[in-house]
């Protein structure tokens, strides 16, 4: 299906992209296009102006310094999954990026486009929340930084405003004793998460000293499993303690679980503890 007609503008630099965005109210930013183009083809989005930032050089690249991984918004899922720096410093992100969509989708789709779109069934928002990422945004008032917990505001709604551009995502590099993982039950055609779980634990002297568990696919924004996290801290991470923590996830999800034609809310809620257990077990096995 064809999208509605629009004016296409290509930005060569970030400053140019920002200026075009201020000048064209209602314009949408196009990066890899793997979230925006499907929406436009379904006419769920019909912007009159599309600003292509796909070739802005300062939005590319991955660097690791000062204990943080800095990822340009235009970094593709394939580039993330292939990066040795990401694999070492943010295991769950590497793992999740390698399971977004399929190989052709990963060659075009970008981390910035993915999180700015904020589909509830998308993998990376949960992973970046679990890893405590910071999102750097450029807008009319200059630059600002937003923590993951404040970034995802609602279904397909983020802290990136109409005149803003998400420029980089900063992820704290893996600390001593930390391990992280992402486990998902995926829709067989779209490969979106029916249930996705990102887990990150820090183990010190055989005891879990910090844990974060964040789910996607179930609620409109990434869901923290606080009771599950609390149940892990202070424990040795064994099959039994992990299973006990996973069993608490229902309390954390409450009645906000969404269902659709593929999987009902009840089904998703029943599957969630299984994937929490798998994600935490994998994270624990990688903690070093």
């Amino acid at each position, binding site marked *: 299906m064809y999208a509605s007609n629009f004016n296409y503008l290509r930005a060569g630099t970030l400053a140019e992209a920002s200026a075009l965005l201020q000048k064209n109210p209602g314009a949408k930013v196009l990066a890899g296009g793997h979230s925006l183009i499907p929406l436009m083809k379904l006419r769920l989005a019909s912007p009159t102006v599309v600003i292509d930032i796909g070739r802005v050089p300062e939005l590319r690249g991955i660097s690791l310094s000062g204990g943080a991984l800095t990822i340009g918004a235009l970094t593709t899922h394939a580039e993330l999954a292939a990066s040795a720096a990401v694999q070492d410093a943010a295991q769950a992100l590497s793992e999740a990026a390698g399971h977004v969509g399929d190989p*052709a989708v990963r060659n075009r789709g970008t981390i910035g486009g993915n999180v700015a779109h904020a589909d509830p069934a998308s993998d990376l928002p949960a992973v970046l929340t679990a890893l405590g990422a910071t999102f750097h945004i450029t807008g009319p008032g200059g630059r600002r930084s937003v923590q993951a917990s404040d970034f995802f505001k609602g279904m397909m709604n983020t802290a990136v405003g109409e005149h803003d551009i998400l420029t980089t995502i900063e992820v704290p590099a893996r600390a001593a004793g930390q391990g992280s993982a992402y486990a998902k039950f995926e829709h067989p055609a779209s490969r979106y998460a029916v249930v996705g779980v990102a887990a990150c634990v820090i183990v010190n002297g055989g005891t879990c000293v910090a844990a974060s568990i964040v789910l996607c696919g179930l609620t409109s924004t990434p869901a923290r499993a606080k009771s599950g996290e609390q149940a892990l801290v202070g424990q040795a991470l064994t099959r039994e303690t992990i299973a006990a923590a996973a069993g608490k996830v229902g309390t954390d999800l409450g009645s906000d679980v969404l269902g659709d034609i593929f999987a009902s809310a009840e089904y998703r809620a029943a599957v969630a503890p299984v994937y929490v257990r798998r994600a935490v077990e994998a994270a624990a096995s990688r903690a070093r």
Partner: protein
Amino acid sequence: MSQVAIIVNGKARKADVEPRMLLVHVLREQFNLTGTHLGCDTSQCGACTVLVDGRSAKSCTIFAVQADGSEVTTIEGLATDGQLHPLQKGFWDAHGLQCGYCTPGMIMSAVTLLRDTPDPTEAQIREGIAGNLCRCTGYQHIVDAIQLAAGRR
């Protein structure tokens, strides 16, 4: 209208397009390269897979204007001097197709797979074509075809 210049199968091509025109439509309707198929039109089935700057991409999810200045390879660009590409030969010999609708996309995905992973395991092949749906074969002969092609290269 915007003018796009794309190198398609090694040849410089130009087209006047509406910005909303998808790459798959320009390839099929303006360049008459109908080997690239449009299947689901929702980035899931992979029938429209081509190479953009050397890597597999779903041409139903790219506006042609985004490909301006890029190199695009379609199924028509694989054979050289009348000789089938090893993957085309593999699909022929291992019966990797029945109706053939998914085949061009399958092969273009497999080109990227074998570039990244020259000697893939069966699991790696299945992951490599995870974005390509086939309703005829049950995939086994497609996996065999890609394995055969990998061994012959």
